[in-house]
């Protein structure tokens, strides 16, 4: 039995990973739930968020200003893409969405490679985000990751407030349930779509800019996380923000605890050499097994959105 402090620290790691997944999944599931649009290029906005913020931080010399500019920039790029490229695709089926947005992935990866080069870039953390926090005696948790958890939870709370308590949220929910009806009631659905899409992109950009200092900033960085994000959405239920939140935390925690404790746990049951080969393989499958399990019990996901 591993010590409790270790389990707790791994739980925190899981929550931190889950929070990142949530930021990505929230935008993707919003776009899918409201616009019924499959956006494979969501990872590109994660990448754009990281690159734009890095450029803005270097240009302004101030981290906060860079973050604000980077987010605004990702929002604008997202809205621009929606207006220029995606608007004409809504009437078509999902296969066309997949094809077109796959093209966007290639386009953005090359564009970023042309502007910033293929070399991996260093995204330094500002001085005040370095160091460690001591949550209890003997544990050293990176301060930056603690901040990521707090920001993610705050965004989650903010999203909940916007969706359930504001007029915009009401329109979003109405659009998800019946878009023909709200269009008939005089709501500018086109504008609503552009705003929602840009907003979803900005959330992905936020995940990307927070990931920059932890992971590597490189062309194609978004695709590395995208598969797990799709798992989150399928588990949580397509189109549901609440589902994305629960699904993300579930995937984050299961994946992290699996990587940390599955092999030692197996070693107590089967021979250590067998555990050595089975442990890592099983740990990397764990979230897909979880997805299969959820789909078997609740084919619509944990929190299916009501309108669909």
């Amino acid at each position, binding site marked *: 039995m591993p010590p409790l402090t270790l389990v707790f620290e791994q739980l925190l790691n899981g929550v931190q*990973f889950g929070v990142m997944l949530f930021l990505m999944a929230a935008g993707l599931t919003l776009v899918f739930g409201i616009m019924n649009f499959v956006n494979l290029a969501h990872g590109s906005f994660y990448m754009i968020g990281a690159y734009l913020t890095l450029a803005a931080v270097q240009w302004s010399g101030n981290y906060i200003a860079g973050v604000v500019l980077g987010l605004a920039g990702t929002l604008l790029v997202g809205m621009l893409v929606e207006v220029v490229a995606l608007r004409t695709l809504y009437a078509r089926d999902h296969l066309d969405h997949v094809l077109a947005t796959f093209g966007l992935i290639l386009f953005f990866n090359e564009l970023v490679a042309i502007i910033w080069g293929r070399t991996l870039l260093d995204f330094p953390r500002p001085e005040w985000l370095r160091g460690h926090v001591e949550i209890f005696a003997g544990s050293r948790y990176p301060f930056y990751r603690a901040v990521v958890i707090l920001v993610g939870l705050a965004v989650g709370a903010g999203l909940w407030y916007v969706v359930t308590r504001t007029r915009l949220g009401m329109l979003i929910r109405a659009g998800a349930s019946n878009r023909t009806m709200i269009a008939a009631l005089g709501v500018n659905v086109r504008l609503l779509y552009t705003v929602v899409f840009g907003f979803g992109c900005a959330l992905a950009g936020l995940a990307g800019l927070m990931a920059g200092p*932890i992971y590597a900033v490189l062309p194609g960085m978004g695709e590395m996380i995208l598969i797990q994000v799709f798992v989150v959405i399928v588990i949580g239920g397509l189109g549901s923000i609440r589902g994305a939140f629960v699904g993300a935390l579930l995937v984050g925690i299961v994946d992290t605890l699996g990587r940390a404790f599955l092999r030692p746990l197996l070693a107590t049951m089967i021979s250590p050499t067998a555990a050595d080969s089975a442990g890592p393989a099983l740990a*990397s499958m764990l979230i897909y097994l979880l997805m299969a399990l959820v789909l078997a019990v609740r084919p619509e996901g944990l929190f299916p959105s009501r309108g669909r």
Partner: protein
Amino acid sequence: MRTKLFAVAVAALFAASPALAQQKLKIGFITTLSGPLGVIGKHMKDSVELALDHLNRKVGGLETEVVYGDDQAKPDVGLQVAKEMMQKDNVDIVAGIIWSNVMLAVVPAVTETGRIMVGTNAGASPLAGAQCNERYFSTSWNNDQSPEALGKYMQDQGINDVYVLAPNYQAGKDMVAGFKRYYKGRIVDEVYTRFGQTDYQAEITQLRSKSPKAVFVFYPGGMGIQFLKQYSEAGLRGTYPLYSVFTVDEISIPAIKHAALGQYEARFWSPDLKVPASQKYVADFQKKYGHLPVFYGAQSYDGILLIDSAVRAVKGKVKDTKGMIAAMRKANYDSIRGKFTFNVNHHPIQNFYLLKAVAGPAGKDPVLEIQQTVFKNHKDAYYKDCKMKW
């Protein structure tokens, strides 16, 4: 009309006697040029171009054209690119290739056509052992050799309680096997992570709970950058010394900067190697491209020079494969690693060094510096399985 007829006759004569000296040499160079790993291919391509500059664009005295192919780091694509080069572009020699799995797919396809293949990175063990081939030469190493050097160094230092981390795929297991061939001390734990994993916080937390004396890792490409950043962020750099292979290099250092400081690597070459051919390569590479070269590039530069030496020796008769092979076996050129000989399996017998990332010039990134020679004239562990005789 008469001149045209004459030209056709001459052309027919040339076609009929392939062992005649050629006017032009075509080399097919395969590497990864697109995607996140394209940065490695760029270094290799840039180095090939620099080699051509140094040879006045004439490899072995022949007018030379290099056809570049992008394997996208996939064996099937690499094979397709190689076939296209041989059939459509009619290349005389194929070179390059970063990944072992691509190499294993391409080598048989090239050598069975009678062409020579010069591998400039991947060091798949079968090709050094049972599947060695008289038409396949390597200007790099066998995969196991660098971890062997690191294992030997750590063994000699009496370092005990090592924590081992590597991605869960063939090369990851091979590197650990190579490490353990020479390191005989205690291993605290051996952890294999998902290939392409981006977040290592869970593994780092586990590692810290075990308090090892040292850590051995193999994390190539982007995985290494992420691991090193997170290792440094967790405050472990300096607490648990890190020994790695194919993880800290001139491509990853600009992305991790100070997080590289103090890390150990083992390698057959480093930009600071005091060999005239290497110093010329490094200086001219920096002049032309504005940054330091990396070993992937050095090996590729070396590959072109090896081809040059052989084409010169056969006086341009590239189709004389026997003569080419005999000339290549002599390794009669100024290699960036210094004078060396080929083992019976066409893999270099060479030195391996311990490198350490130290502070660079003021305001610049850290640089790798040779600390000591771990192996002198080191042979790989597989050559005895190679049945070639020469």
